[in-house]
């Protein structure tokens, strides 16, 4: 079965407004530290920081009219790559040959792979897996060797802890409002935040902290020591992805808390270094950024062979993350990012066909592909111009 068409699209989904008995969730107002926080005149609320981009979708149609869908980060930049360079490279080729198609894309992007290009490739790969599942009539988790479990255990990310507990979650990851230039005063505020969170969730619940690359290795260790009494399950991405030596030093010194990182690592080559250096306890590839499902499976294999667990970034909210965690034995947990308001159903922002969390667990769809049920009329061509579509030699 050949690929007939590859195109970047926008999903024109209606926005569900929170009901009258809700209040704005943490995601709308909680200050979060990220690298750009060095400059205090930028707001720290997610979505408003410089560099924030929206996601886009890829639709890949086979010659019999069956199509698959996948989404990826940094949509406006990646869309030009997909429509003008990746589409002419893979159209007309075998739709099921995901290894070949990914290899073609990797090799065509040898001078700029990673970052935006790898995020764009992720969307293409996910659309290919959705298409493969539909053509073969099987859910993706079966195609990659699952199921390994009947449901996927979730941890919730957010600061609305009472609401998250009411929803049935038992594991929680909280935000970090503290950037490394804020000194001891900022560190004290962070300790208050963590102490209050531990008091709310209780002694037995798992609690994690995510500083999103806001520290250097020295401060990360001092923060970890200060927070030691609160028994964090893991300390997530305290350093930028390029500081491999810093991660190694931190992991060796921070024996009381696991070190997790990976959402800003792109592709198996970066993860191979991370695993080989024993620089981390848990890896967290983002399936929409790191190269798609094909690449995440290879990353998983490196980690699994080294005794390191893979817990995909934002895996619980997305169909690909649900299928991945359902299938892979050493991925026993997935993240549920709470992007809805307090009191609002947690499934309100999901695409049709994507199951929502219930009592801290999620059961992936068993429909063919990833099980997406997006109405065709919602799918509209991506609007961009200027760049001409490439013309390559025929397969």
């Amino acid at each position, binding site marked *: 079965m050949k690929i007939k068409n590859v195109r970047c699209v926008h999903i024109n989904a209606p926005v569900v407004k929170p009901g009258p008995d809700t209040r704005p969730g943490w995601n709308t107002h909680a200050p979060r530290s990220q690298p750009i926080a060095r400059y205090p005149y930028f707001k720290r609320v997610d979505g408003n920081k410089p560099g924030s981009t929206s996601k886009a979708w890829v639709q890949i149609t086979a010659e019999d009219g069956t199509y698959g869908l996948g989404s990826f980060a940094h949509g406006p930049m990646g869309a030009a790559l997909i429509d003008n360079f990746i589409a002419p490279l893979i159209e007309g080729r075998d739709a099921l*040959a995901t*290894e*070949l198609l990914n*290899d073609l894309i990797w090799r065509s992007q040898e001078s700029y792979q990673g970052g935006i290009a790898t995020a764009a490739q992720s969307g293409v790969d996910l659309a290919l897996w959705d298409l493969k599942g539909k053509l073969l009539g099987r859910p993706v988790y079966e195609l990659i060797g699952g199921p390994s479990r009947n449901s996927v255990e979730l941890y919730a990310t957010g600061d609305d802890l009472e609401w998250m507990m009411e929803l049935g979650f038992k594991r929680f990851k909280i935000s970090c409002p503290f950037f490394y230039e804020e000194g001891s005063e900022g560190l004290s505020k962070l300790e208050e935040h963590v102490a209050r969170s531990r008091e709310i969730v209780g002694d037995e619940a798992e609690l994690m902290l995510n500083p999103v690359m806001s520290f250097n290795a020295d401060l990360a260790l001092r923060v970890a020591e200060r927070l030691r009494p609160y028994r964090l399950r893991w300390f997530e991405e305290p350093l930028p992805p390029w500081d491999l030596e810093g991660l190694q030093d931190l992991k060796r010194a921070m024996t009381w808390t696991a070190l997790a990182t990976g959402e800003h690592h792109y592709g198996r080559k970066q993860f191979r270094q991370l695993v080989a250096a024993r620089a981390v306890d848990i890896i967290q590839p983002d399936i929409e950024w790191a190269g798609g499902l094909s690449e995440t499976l290879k990353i998983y294999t490196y980690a699994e062979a080294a005794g390191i667990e893979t817990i995909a970034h934002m895996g619980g909210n997305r169909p690909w993350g649900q299928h991945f965690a359902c299938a892979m034995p050493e991925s026993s947990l997935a993240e549920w990012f709470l992007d809805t308001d307090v009191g609002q159903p947690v499934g309100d922002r999901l695409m049709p066909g994507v199951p929502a969390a219930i009592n801290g667990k999620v059961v992936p769809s068993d429909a063919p592909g990833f099980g997406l049920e997006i109405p065709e009329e919602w799918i509209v061509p991506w609007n961009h111009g200027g760049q001409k579509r490439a013309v390559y030699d025929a397969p």
Partner: protein
Amino acid sequence: MAATESPMAEYWLGTDPGVLLEETARIPGTATPVNGRIVPSTAPGFGMEIEAGDISKWDGRIG
């Protein structure tokens, strides 16, 4: 056939000189090399065509 960084495979020649490859004992349904290349079966699974009657319970023999 599927993995891009596996461009070559070994074909172990267990037959005498002069014996045609298609006449050698092999699993029914699997392909025979032609001019140094082999095309795997496109049938479901690995494409093996072993008759059910030819399959018996392992008898525990060693060697």
